[in-house]
């Protein structure tokens, strides 16, 4: 696996897509133009970009409440995404799911999730289907550090190991679950120790560096696809905004200094510096990528704004397959 210029640029674009879309979503939420809860992924882009960049397009992923990044890094469509955040009929879920349930089955993205830890067992199922049908695909579950405290995670980890399934567990360890620091809710610090407990390998990687994540994910994926059973990648990362929305909340669960310190390791800047220093891109071509993507983001806002809301008749549609709810 050689990491070509194309791959390095591709990883960068994936991250910029997440960053610019989310910054826009954050602004819209601040001005009360988005309904509901918005969990921003900003700061953690290297994880989604690095992992999704290493996947085949039909490898399945499950996601979390902080799910925009995963879908966008897998190639999600800005328009359908922004429309969904606004609750419009043209959105990914026809306006019925919103930010926390965003999904794209064509991209094998099996959904963000409002229930912490709930995506992990679903990935086990996808992995089982892969194994049974021999389609050569692997399934990936993204989950937070906090999610590994819930039973669903443990049941899924054990089952994936017991059935030796082609599944990659990706822990996005941002050191907090909502407002609780990790050390207050678990007596271990590295989630990969939980993989060891269930009998499969895990490794830690710098989650603020897309290349480190990409390389580590690629190594694991190759082994998993080769039939070695599940593996876990723990990405040490950080969210720059608050648990919900943009601004800080009432309690000072983390300090501004801490956030500033981590912002110095901004995954986009880390990678931009690398691209420039290695002569792969210059400041202008980087700006051009950003401008192009920002244009797409602006278009998506316009698209979403102009899209209709779902109609009352849609309420009972899709409760069941082949047949209406009453």
């Amino acid at each position, binding site marked *: 696996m050689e*990491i070509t210029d194309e791959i390095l640029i591709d990883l960068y674009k994936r991250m910029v897509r997440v960053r610019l879309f989310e910054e826009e979503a954050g602004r819209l939420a601040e001005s009360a133009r988005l309904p509901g809860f918005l969990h921003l992924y900003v700061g953690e882009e290297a994880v989604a970009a690095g992992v999704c960049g290493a996947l085949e397009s039909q490898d399945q992923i499950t996601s979390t409440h902080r799910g925009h990044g995963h879908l966008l890094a897998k190639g999600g469509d800005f328009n359908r995404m922004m429309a969904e955040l606004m609750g419009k009929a043209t959105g990914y879920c026809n306006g019925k799911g919103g930010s926390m349930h965003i999904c794209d089955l064509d991209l094998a993205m099996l959904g963000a999730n409002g229930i912490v830890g709930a995506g992990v067992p679903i990935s086990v199922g996808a992995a089982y289907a892969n194994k049974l049908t021999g389609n050569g695909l692997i399934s990936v579950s993204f989950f937070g550090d906090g999610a590994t405290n819930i039973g669903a995670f443990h049941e899924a980890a054990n089952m994936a190991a017991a059935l030796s399934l082609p599944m990659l567990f990706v822990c996005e360890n941002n050191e907090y679950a909502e407002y609780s620091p990790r050390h207050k809710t678990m007596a*271990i*610090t*590295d989630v*990969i*120790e939980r993989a*060891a407990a269930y009998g499969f*390998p*895990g*490794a*830690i*990687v*710098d989650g603020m560096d897309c*290349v*480190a*994540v*990409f*390389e*580590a994910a690629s*190594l*694991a994926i190759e*082994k998993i696809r080769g039939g070695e059973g599940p*593996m876990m990648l723990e990405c*040490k990362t950080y969210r720059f905004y608050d648990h919900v929305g943009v601004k800080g909340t009432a309690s000072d669960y983390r300090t501004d200094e801490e956030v500033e310190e981590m912002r110095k390791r901004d995954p986009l800047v880390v990678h931009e510096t*690398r691209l420039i220093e*290695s002569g792969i891109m210059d400041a202008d071509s980087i700006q051009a990528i950003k401008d192009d993507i920002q244009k797409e983001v602006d278009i998506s806002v316009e698209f979403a704004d102009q899209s209709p809301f779902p109609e009352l008749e849609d309420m009972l549609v899709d409760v069941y397959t082949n047949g209406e709810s009453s």
Partner: protein
Amino acid sequence: MTKVGLIANPLAGKDVRRFVSAASLNSDRSKIEILRRCVLGAIDAGAEKVLLANDFRNLALRAVEGLNLGSKIEEMSFHPEGRRKDTTEAAKIFKKEGVKSVISLGGDGTQRDLVLGWIDAPLLPISTGTNNVFPFMVDPTVAGTAAGLVASGELVIEEVSKQAKVIHVDLPNGVKDLALVDVVLVDDRLTGSRAVVKPDSVKQVLAAIADPASIGLASIAGRSNPVYFNDESAVSVICDPTAKQGVFAPIMPGSVSDVGITDIRKVELGETIELDGPGALAFDGERDFVMGENEVAKATVLRNGPKVINPIFAIQTAASNKVFLRKRNS
């Protein structure tokens, strides 16, 4: 004051080599247990104090929980950030505090970080890493006892230790770096996940310790032309996947590769070896620095490193000195 310094790298033994080879995970819990045994061993051997370097996982502090050792335990006042330089900073403090011996838990990379902060530290390295050429695989109680005996003066450091060789590297950007086991040039322009996992990417190995029985990149040299800790020389191997000759070397635990080699030569202490870019330089197994075309790093091996305490030899020496026989007040 007879002080033993104690430090552990929480991240040692947890990198991507667990995916590609059969490297095992070194859990926090196992490190805590090792640290605890070291502390007890050292105090029992007469160390008046154990100075704990607080790591960002609080492993050392958790290790002494419930031991009620009171003033025998001293916590270093320093704020670890979860970076490599934590170990280096802690080593500087050990030196300033005048500790008589340092027990350090980690692999080759961790020991290197420590030596960056205190080059000739009186060091008893214990292996909890992935590649463990430099540190000892030893029962921690024994290690603690050895370090404690050195600190308390029961053992003379010169008699139970030997100074290690160090590979000093002048990087093209003017920075000076070092390695304890090997400096390896790999065909890569990224540091990525840092570990070197592709045998074909290795271009050159410069090893101060090349033991055929050890694991890691240095085994390429070790299985071609061994150089041991005590030997007054080093070895350089030029690698090329298309070479006519290959060596079977375990570059990671459980992963033996056929590495093509075109040249093997002895390197004298004090001699300067050039490592020519482009490529990434790996120090003791981890990619750390990327060199461009026409960039050159210069490496020199000198025996001016840590005084490495051999715990087995130390305990044996102590036993023949009858150190463990104590009078009882009946």
